[in-house]
């Protein structure tokens, strides 16, 4: 555990150091880091902003467990960047303001539209941040023996430092540091495991290579191993094709519509820089996302190898002597980490056939043995990974520091959305229009501090309810169905007006919320799903309705004023931005 403490303490000291160095002096610094972040630096910050505790801690485990079905996360969470790069980011940067509600409110010349966008942004960001704070709590309590709530408290203090002091400027540079920590922490165990299993140091190549010292490909071997135990083949899925399609779509369009991702592209100098920056962001993200399926499949092989048919050792017994006895009898002792992780209830053992050995089985085991690994959480594949693969002690410490970096960097990005929604969109742009820059900066810091507190409480609260994984579907579904359509139409269709935008956002918000709520909490029977689409994928379906409704309503109501149409033409062409009438009267573009 000493290594863990070392890595966590060192990285935290680094983040605080950066926070003190990168203080914000104006609202321009605080909201958009002065519009002058280098595209590559912003790409790195975006990657950390984007890759959350879920990407770092849960995704490979989910893929390990779901096999081909896990591809929805891989394609969905990377493909969204293509949409961002070609449909949104450069144009929003050319528009040249601070927040997503800024664009919605000014482009649709409407306070109501601005307020609905604020609501969407707040809702999406709060559901998302609860998961991050929970991740921080889990990392602290699972690895450092700190109590869950205290862990969240420590996380809050760290984020408080750089989000409140530095705003977007502080967040940007800490995110860069956090990206370096998290990608290193992810890659090192991946390389170790790839060498052990496939003899190839590049995980992406080991993934398509042969098992070390055998003449069978890693994936064939894995398919055979899992089907022998009664699981579905690794390269297959039991999801319907349409549902795969819809979930991938909801994640892609949701990614493109997430406010905390979009605002990162406001920090660069120009539309051109925003495009390049999106490319770099995806490069940095792809380093982790192409390694994740390799890590997932290696972890699945390792877990089955070490656990299945191993002789169990009770908690009270002396592990070393008992393990030696079992080995002497020609048996396989259960690895020591098993008992350690049993305490977290992520895994367990019920000896159903009374033979003292752990039988790990799927739903249709050919040998008729029942599964005895109960409970079983897919998260174990990543969390216990370094131990399963017998990696050196310091690697575990590195993974903890990486998980914390992933959670804190995403939390900070979300905090910026929440605080700017309050201080900028609600106060400055709606209720107190004559507030000066200094006061707004003060309010922004206050709002950031309040948001840190609220996020911490939400993390504590969410862990008690245990529904974080469920509500993440909300964030993507809502972003896809309510924010993406109106931003997209606002750029690509000049005729889109205020009435259409309001109708479209309201439809997306209400329908998606109702559907997810109903099928997650009221009626959990999948056979009742609309068109067979799961709550995770419904945002994609409702997005098309939302776009259609927006267009129909806009056609039935008057066209937007000429100044707005000029504005739309203006933001389509980089480097020509001038002020256009009422839309830019209150806040000139920069």
């Amino acid at each position: 555990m000493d290594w863990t403490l070392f890595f966590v303490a060192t990285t935290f000291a680094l983040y605080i150091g950066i926070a003190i160095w990168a203080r914000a002096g104006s609202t321009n610094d605080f909201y958009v880091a002065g519009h002058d972040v280098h595209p590559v630096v912003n790409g790195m910050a975006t990657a950390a902003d984007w890759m959350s505790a879920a990407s770092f801690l849960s995704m490979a485990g989910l893929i390990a467990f779901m096999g081909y079905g896990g591809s929805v996360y891989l394609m969905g969470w990377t493909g969204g960047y293509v949409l961002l790069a070609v449909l949104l980011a450069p144009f929003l940067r050319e528009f040249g303001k601070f927040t997503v509600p800024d664009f919605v409110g000014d482009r649709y010349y409407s306070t109501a539209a601005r307020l609905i966008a604020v609501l969407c942004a707040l809702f999406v960001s709060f559901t998302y941040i609860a998961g991050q704070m929970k991740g921080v709590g889990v990392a602290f309590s699972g690895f450092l023996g700190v109590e869950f709530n205290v862990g969240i408290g420590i996380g809050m203090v760290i984020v408080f430092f750089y989000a409140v002091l530095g705003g977007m400027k502080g967040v940007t540079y800490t995110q860069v540091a956090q990206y370096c920590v998290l990608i290193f922490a992810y890659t090192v165990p991946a390389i170790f495991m790839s060498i052990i299993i496939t003899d190839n140091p590049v995980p992406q190549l080991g993934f398509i290579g042969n098992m070390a010292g055998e003449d069978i490909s890693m994936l064939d071997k894995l398919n055979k191993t899992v089907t022998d135990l009664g699981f579905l083949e690794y390269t297959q899925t039991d999801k319907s094709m349409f549902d795969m399609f819809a979930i991938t779509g909801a994640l892609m369009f949701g990614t493109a519509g997430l406010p905390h991702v979009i605002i990162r592209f406001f920090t660069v100098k120009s539309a051109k820089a925003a495009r390049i920056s999106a490319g770099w962001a995806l490069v940095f993200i792809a380093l982790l996302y192409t390694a994740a399926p390799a890590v997932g499949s290696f972890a699945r092989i390792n877990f089955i190898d070490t656990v299945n048919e191993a002789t169990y050792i009770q908690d009270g017994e002396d592990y070393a002597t008992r393990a030696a006895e079992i080995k002497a009898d020609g048996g396989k002792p259960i690895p020591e980490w098993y008992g350690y992780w049993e305490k977290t209830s992520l895994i367990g053992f019920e000896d159903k056939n009374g033979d003292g050995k752990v039988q790990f089985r799927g739903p249709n085991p050919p040998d008729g043995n029942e599964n005895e690994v109960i409970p079983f959480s897919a998260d174990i594949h990543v969390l216990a990974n370094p131990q399963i693969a017998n990696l050196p002690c310091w690697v575990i410490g590195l993974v903890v520091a990486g998980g914390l970096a992933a959670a804190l960097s995403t939390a900070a990005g979300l905090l910026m959305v929440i605080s700017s929604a309050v201080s900028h969109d609600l106060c400055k742009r709606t209720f107190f229009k004559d507030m000066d820059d200094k006061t707004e900066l003060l309010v922004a810091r206050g709002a950031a501090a309040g948001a840190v507190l609220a996020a911490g409480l939400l993390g504590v609260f969410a862990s008690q309810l245990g529904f974080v994984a469920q509500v993440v579907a909300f964030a993507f579904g809502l972003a896809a169905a309510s924010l993406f359509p109106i931003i997209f139409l606002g750029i690509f269709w000049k005729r889109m007006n205020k009435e259409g935008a309001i109708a479209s956002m309201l439809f997306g918000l209400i329908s998606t919320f109702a559907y997810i709520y109903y099928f997650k909490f009221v009626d959990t029977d999948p056979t009742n799903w609309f068109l067979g689409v799961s709550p995770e994928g419904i945002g994609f379906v409702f997005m098309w309705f939302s776009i259609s409704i927006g267009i129909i309503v806009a056609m039935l109501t008057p066209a937007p004023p000429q100044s707005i149409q000029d504005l739309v033409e203006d933001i389509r062409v980089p480097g020509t931005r001038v002020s256009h009438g009422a839309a830019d009267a209150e806040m000139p573009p920069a």
Partner: protein
Amino acid sequence: MSDETQKTNAKAYWKATIRLTVSLLIIWFAVSYGAGILFREFLDQFSIGGAPLGFWFAQQGAIYVFVALIFYYCWAMARLERKFGVEG
């Protein structure tokens, strides 16, 4: 440059941008939804290294193509901007 030519240039530039965007999105769709989901079973009869091709597209290939698409977009847009005299 007069205001009039600037306006026509902007119009032509936007038209070319849309054409480029649509072609890139067709590729974007083809490698993910197409190769990774709709035609996966057909593609799985081929393999790349030890992985079925459709499965590989869904877990690796699509991501590589996405990266290439964005950088190509940056390059092609810079070319369009030069061609139509729009500053980047």
